[in-house]
C-alpha cells in the first residue's frame, strides 16, 4: 500500500500550544483539506491514464501499474543521472508514452473488439514488465528525497510536495478538458471513439487516433508514476499499490464521459477515503473505497459518468 500521508510526517502529532481556538480550528480545517486533496489527487492521477484508454478505446490496460512503475524508475534514474526532477518527470512521461505507442502498434491493436482477450494480453505484458524489471534492477531501487520539504500551518507540518500534486492534478484536469473538448485532435479522437466507421468516412485516420490515445494514456500513467516516485519505496511491484485504487476509480467512473467522470469520481471517492482514513486509519480508508465501489456499482451499473449521461439525455 501507499506509504506517506499524514502519519509519516514528524510534526504531525504535535499540536501547537498557541492557545487561540481559531488558529486551532484553522489548523483542523487545513488538515482536513490537505487530506482530502491528497486522496483526490492520488485517485485522479493514478486513474486518469487508465480512464482515458478505457473510456476512449474500451481497452482495459492491466499493465497500467507497470507503466506507472516504468515512469517512476525512469524519473528516478534520470534524476540520479543529473536531470532536475521536474524535467525527469516530463522525460519519463514521454518515454512511457512512446513505449505505449509501440506496444499498441505491436500487440494491443490486435485486440480491439475483443475485450476479455485484451485483458489477458495486457496482463501477460504486465507480468513480463514487472518480472523483467526484477531481473534487471533487483528487488528495490533507492528513491529520491521528496522535493520541496515541509510547510507548517497552525503548528502542524505538511509535505508541500503533496499539495503541489493536488495542484498538478487540477492543472492536468483543465489541460485534458481543453485537449479533448477544444482542440481539433480532441474532436477527432472523440469522433473516432464514438463511431469509428463514420469517423473513418469523414477522413479521420482512426487507427492513428487509437495509437495516439493509447500513447497519451500511457504517458499519463508514466507521469503519475514519476510524480509519486519520491513518496514511496520503488520496487518492480510499485504499480500494484496504485492498481486497486485506480481500478476502483475507473469502475465507479464508467466509460461514458471520461474527464467529467474521472473528476466527479475522484472527488467522491476522495471524500469517502479521506473521511474513513481520517477516522479509522489508512487501511480502513482503502477498504471503504472498495465497499463504496461495490455499493455504487450495485446502484449505478454504468458508473457515475454513464448515469450522468443517461440523465442528461432524459433532460433533453
Amino acid at each position, binding site marked *: 500500500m501507499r506509504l506517506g500521508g499524514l502519519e509519516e510526517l514528524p510534526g504531525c502529532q504535535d499540536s501547537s500550544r498557541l492557545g487561540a481556538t481559531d488558529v486551532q480550528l484553522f489548523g483542523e480545517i487545513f488538515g482536513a483539506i490537505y487530506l482530502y486533496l491528497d486522496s483526490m489527487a492520488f485517485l485522479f492521477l493514478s486513474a486518469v491514464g487508465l480512464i482515458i484508454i478505457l473510456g476512449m478505446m474500451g481497452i482495459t490496460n492491466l499493465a497500467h501499474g507497470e507503466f506507472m512503475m516504468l515512469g517512476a524508475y525512469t524519473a528516478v534514474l534520470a534524476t540520479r543521472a543529473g536531470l532536475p526532477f521536474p524535467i525527469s518527470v516530463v522525460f519519463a512521461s514521454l518515454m512511457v508514452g512512446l513505449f505505449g505507442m509501440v506496444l499498441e502498434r505491436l*500487440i494491443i491493436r490486435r485486440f480491439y473488439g475483443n475485450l476479455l482477450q485484451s*485483458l489477458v*494480453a495486457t*496482463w*501477460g505484458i504486465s507480468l513480463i514488465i514487472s518480472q523483467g524489471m526484477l531481473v534487471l534492477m533487483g528487488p528495490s531501487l533507492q528513491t529520491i528525497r521528496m522535493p520541496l520539504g515541509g510547510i507548517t500551518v497552525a503548528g502542524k507540518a505538511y509535505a508541500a510536495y503533496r499539495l503541489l500534486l493536488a495542484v498538478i492534478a487540477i492543472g492536468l484536469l483543465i489541460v485534458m478538458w481543453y485537449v479533448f473538448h477544444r482542440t481539433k485532435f480532441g474532436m477527432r479522437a472523440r469522433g473516432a471513439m464514438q463511431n469509428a466507421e463514420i469517423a473513418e468516412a469523414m477522413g479521420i485516420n482512426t487507427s492513428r487516433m487509437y495509437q495516439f490515445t493509447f500513447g497519451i494514456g500511457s504517458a499519463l500513467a508514466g507521469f503519475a508514476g514519476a510524480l509519486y516516485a519520491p513518496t514511496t519505496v520503488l520496487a518492480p511491484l510499485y504499480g500494484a499499490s496504485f492498481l486497486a485504487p485506480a481500478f476502483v476509480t475507473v469502475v465507479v467512473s464508467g466509460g461514458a464521459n471520461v474527464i467529467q467522470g474521472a473528476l466527479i469520481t475522484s472527488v467522491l471517492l476522495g471524500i469517502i477515503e479521506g473521511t474513513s482514513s481520517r477516522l479509522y486509519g489508512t487501511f480502513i480508508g482503502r*477498504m471503504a473505497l*472498495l465497499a463504496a465501489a461495490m455499493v455504487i456499482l450495485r446502484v449505478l451499473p454504468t458508473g457515475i459518468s454513464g448515469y450522468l449521461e443517461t440523465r442528461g439525455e432524459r433532460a433533453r
Partner: protein
Amino acid sequence: MNKTSRFSNFLNTVNGPFSIGRSAVFWVAFLIVTGYLYFFPRFASRYDVINLTYFMSWTFVAMGLSLIWGCGNILSFGQMAFVGIGGYVYGIIAINTLDAVGNTIPALLGGIIIPFLVAALLGYFVFYGRVSGVYVSIMTLVFTLVLETFMGQTAGDKWRVGKALLGGYNGMTNIPSINFGSTGLKGASLYYFVLTLMVVTYLLLRYLVNSKYGVGLVATGSNPDRTEVLGYNIRLIQLLAFAIAGGLAGLSGVLYVAWGHYITPSTMGLTNASLPVIWVAVGGRKSMLAAIISTIVLQYFTQYLAVTGSEFALIILGALLLIVVLYMPAGVIPTLANCIGKLGSKRRQEALSNSQSRRGVGA
C-alpha cells in the same frame, strides 16, 4: 426411471455436446491415464508423489475458472482470493477443532462452503448490479488485492481466532493435515485423496456443463441478452457458476494448506493471482481437461525453472500467455486436439466441425 437408465442418462450427459473428447478413443485414453495415475505411487519416488499431489491440488481452481470463463465468459482475476479464503478458513477451523472433534471434516467443508458463500456475495453485487464484461474482471482483481492487504495487516496477537494466529505477512503456520479420524493424510494417502477428488470433480463438472443448467450458462456466456429474453434467469445462472468456481478455488486452498501446513497473504497477491488465468488460458479455457493438464504441466515447468535457478520463470509464463492469446486464442490443447482430429477419419472431422459450428463452446 430405473437405476440403470438413470445412470446411463448421467453418462450420456457427461458425454454431452459441450465437452471436447467424446470419442471411444478418448475414453480409453482417459481410463489408461487415470489407471496409470492410480498406480503411480507404487513405482514413483516419494518426492514425485508429493510433488504431483501439490500440482493436482491446483487443478480445482483451474477447473472452476474454466467453468466461469470458458463456459460463462466471465473472466475472474480473483480466484486466488477464494483459494486464500479456503486455506485460511480450513486452517482456522482445523487448528481450533481438531483436538475436540478428532477429524478435519468440518474444516474441509468450511474451506469449501465459506469461499462458495463469499463468491456468491461478491457475485450478488456484481451480477445483480448488472456489472458486465471487463468490469467484472476488474472488480475481482480489486477484491483479491484488497483481501491480500487485509490479511497482510493481521500480524500480532490481536488477530487471533481461537487458537489460530492469522500472522500477517508471516502467514498462518502449523495447519494440520486433512484427517478423517485416524491419522492425517500424508504422502501416498493424500495423493489418492486428491487424485480421486480431481477425477470425480472433473466428471461432475462435465455433467454440470452438459446439463440443462450448463446449457443456460453457455448461452448466457455467448449472448446474455438473447438468453434473458428466452426466459433464463441469467443473473442467477452467473451467480451460481461464480459461486461454484469460488468453492472449487476454496478446495484448492484447503488442499494447498493441508499439503504445506501454512499459508501467507501473498497467495492472493498480484503475481499469484495471474497463475490460474495463465494455466487456463494456455491450456484452453473451454476444456476442463485442458485446464487440468496445463495446470500440472505449467507447474512442473515453473518448478523445474525455479529449481535450476532461473529467474525467468514468470517472464516465460507471461510471454507464453501473450503468445497463446495472440496466436492460439482457443488454447494449446484444443488446437493440438483439433490437429489430431483432422488426421482422424473424415466422419469424425465432420462431426467435430458440426458440433463446433452449432455452438462454438465446449467444456
